[in-house]
């Protein structure tokens, strides 16, 4: 009797050998989240695969339609939870764009610092987990300490670590504290050396290089037609970076390179992320040393909570406070698309407002959702071990895949 896979594809090869159907996921240690992949395996070689999308769909976009704008921020935290500040700030900027609020330079620079820190943390996690999936756990424990330092800084600024809910629509809830400054300065001084150590640990290791070179490649044409963005597209050799192409939050003020690869394989994705960490450091250094004076929030009374002192003493502040907290701020009607360079690609917010208190329709352009569709094509004909490395190097995060 010929068995059929659940996706209807025949299970037997022409020479009557049976293929092995292997369920990689939904609970598998190296899928880093809930992914299901039904692989047809010829021994160790993947003949075809069927990724399932929507395994943990959480209806974020629908949830957002029932919430006042400022309450959407915690939802964005849970998209790519490795770099929540970028998601938060991206959402804030989208709302500001709709309100046509001009942010002070200081806010822009502070945001750049936070977003680049988040990018470093995200790329670090991606590359060190690539090491873990190939069996090198030591680099992971080293660099996790660095990620902890970044999380300490978030904590200093907003009190949370993973799902940060950092900043407010209009700016930040508080200025950089002395504790934050101290931690940031220590980080900037110590990180490059420790990062180089980590870099050498992996890139000078012959086994690791053999494991990632030529694994899971994708051509620039295919990547573009899948509408890849971010490090995975740049690894394929396309120098597209939202920070340069369509600068937001004063990115045009900074001098940095956009590293690109050539082959689009796992090694290139790894190397692009490694170089981007260095570039992000450069950006942080520039932003921090040129941090302008001024307010850390924009003049945006619709969303930026007035000072508590004013709430007690002035009528207008009290009214705004009430309206903001109760979510009773009417927004202008409009249709906005705003994109930021998220840690693993272009993170877009497509927002339609009908003038009400909640978004009429909100769509997140989640980069992982796009990458994961190309996954089946990328791992075809590769070995099981390569499939794991490819998934790690694309940094597919379940929270972002199934928003």
């Amino acid at each position, binding site marked *: 009797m010929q068995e059929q896979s659940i996706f209807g594809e025949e299970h037997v090869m022409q020479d009557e050998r049976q293929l092995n159907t292997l369920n990689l996921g939904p609970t598998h240690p190296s899928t880093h989240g809930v992914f299901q992949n039904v692989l047809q395996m010829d021994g160790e070689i993947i003949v075809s695969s069927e990724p399932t999308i929507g395994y943990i769909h959480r209806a974020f976009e629908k949830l957002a339609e029932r919430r006042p704008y400022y309450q959407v921020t915690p939802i964005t935290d849970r998209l790519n939870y490795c770099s929540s500040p970028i998601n938060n700030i991206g959402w804030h900027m989208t709302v500001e764009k709709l309100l046509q609020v001009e942010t002070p330079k200081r806010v822009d620079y502070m945001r750049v610092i936070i977003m680049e820190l988040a990018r470093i943390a995200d790329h670090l996690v991606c590359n060190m987990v690539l090491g873990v999936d190939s*069996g090198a756990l030591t680099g992971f424990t080293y660099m996790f300490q660095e990620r902890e330092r970044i999380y300490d800084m978030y904590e200093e600024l907003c009190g949370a670590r993973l799902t940060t809910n950092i900043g407010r629509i209009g700016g930040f809830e508080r200025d950089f504290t002395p504790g934050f400054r101290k931690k940031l300065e220590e980080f900037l001084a110590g990180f490059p050396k420790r990062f180089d150590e980590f870099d050498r640990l992996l890139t000078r290791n012959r086994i690791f290089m053999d494991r990632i070179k030529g694994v899971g490649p994708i051509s620039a044409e295919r990547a573009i037609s899948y509408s890849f963005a971010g490090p995975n597209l740049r690894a394929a050799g396309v120098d597209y970076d939202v920070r340069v192409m369509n600068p937001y939050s004063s990115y045009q003020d900074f001098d940095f390179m956009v590293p690109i690869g050539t082959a689009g394989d796992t090694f290139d994705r790894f190397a692009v992320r490694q170089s981007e960490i260095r570039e992000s450091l450069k950006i942080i250094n520039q932003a921090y040393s040129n941090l302008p004076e001024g307010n850390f929030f924009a003049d945006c009374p619709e969303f930026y909570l007035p000072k508590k002192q004013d709430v007690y003493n002035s009528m207008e502040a009290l009214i705004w406070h009430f309206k903001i907290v109760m979510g009773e701020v009417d927004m202008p009607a409009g249709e906005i698309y705003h994109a930021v360079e998220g840690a693993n690609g272009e993170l877009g917010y497509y927002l339609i407002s009908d003038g009400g208190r909640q978004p009429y329709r909100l769509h997140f352009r989640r980069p992982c959702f796009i990458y994961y569709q190309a996954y089946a094509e990328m791992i075809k004909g590769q070995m099981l071990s390569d499939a794991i490395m490819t998934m790690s190097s694309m940094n597919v995060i379940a929270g972002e895949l199934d928003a």
Partner: protein
Amino acid sequence: MEWIFLLDKTIIAFIAFSITLLIATYSTYAERKIAAFLQDRVGPDRAGPFGMFQPLADAGKFFFKEEIIPATSNKFLFIIGPGIAMTTALMTSVVIPWGGTLEIGDRLVSLQVSDLNIGVLYVFGVVSLGVYGIMIGGWASNNKFSLLGAIRASSQMISYELGMGLSLISLIMLTGTLSMSEIVEQQHGFWADGYFSWYFFKQPIGFLIFIVCAFAECNRTPFDLAECEAELVGGYHTEYSSMKLGFYMFAEYINMFISSAFMASLYFGGYNFPFMDDLGLSQNWITIIGVIVFFLKIFAFIFFFMWIRWTIPRFRYDQLMRLGWQVMMPAALLHIFATGAVILFNQH
């Protein structure tokens, strides 16, 4: 005389057996501590001073854990798998010469359970049986990940046994004997006839091939494909729980201990140490120091095993096979020819 000989051997066998188990137990502790040391962590430190009782706590936990036998598994083979792995791992310690001879009264007691004249061959035979434990366990689980792990493990162990055996042939061409105790005796002291007497200095390349193959035989990183957690969840022991899992882990550590002892005996002089004849000590003292030195050598190798494990990633299946068949095998064969040529050259 006969009964006292039996008594000696029983005691030595018992001691060797307990030491093997003890060291395997504490290797798990050492592994965690060394991993912690290499990874800038603290490691186990709750159970007892410096976490010394951690292995005991682990063993206790293994015994009290619920034992799950998958409904679709072949129960007989599922149960016998870890047993085979453990038994074969423990059997090899018989031929290891733990020390020289002790003088007790007027008797000479050799600190070796059994001086087989084919000791090296015996170890090989038993080690190649070890693959059955993994293969049977992986197959009987009726889990695709276990099966993949078992297939990987068996092809890996068979491939690397060739390289290992061939690298030993060139050593045996020098020693002229397969008896472990004679091989160790030939490496007496440290310096003899104007050259180092340890076989490491005579056959460094052979040792290199041997140690790489030993890593593969023990399923240690970079050759731990059989249980690589990233791809195969737990490899061949995915479905195992409770003390059966403990047996597999124990077997791995015992194998590591035995191969360390094997390498120390064959290439690093076993219980011999430099200047042992110049100290002017009695035979018994030299034997006792020899045993300590032997264990120090073993610990150094175990540390090396762990150091490698926590430093480098693992191979991919095809890379592993390529290394085994296209590098290790030809290198070992060439090494045999080179050794033969050198022996011939020295004779004429």
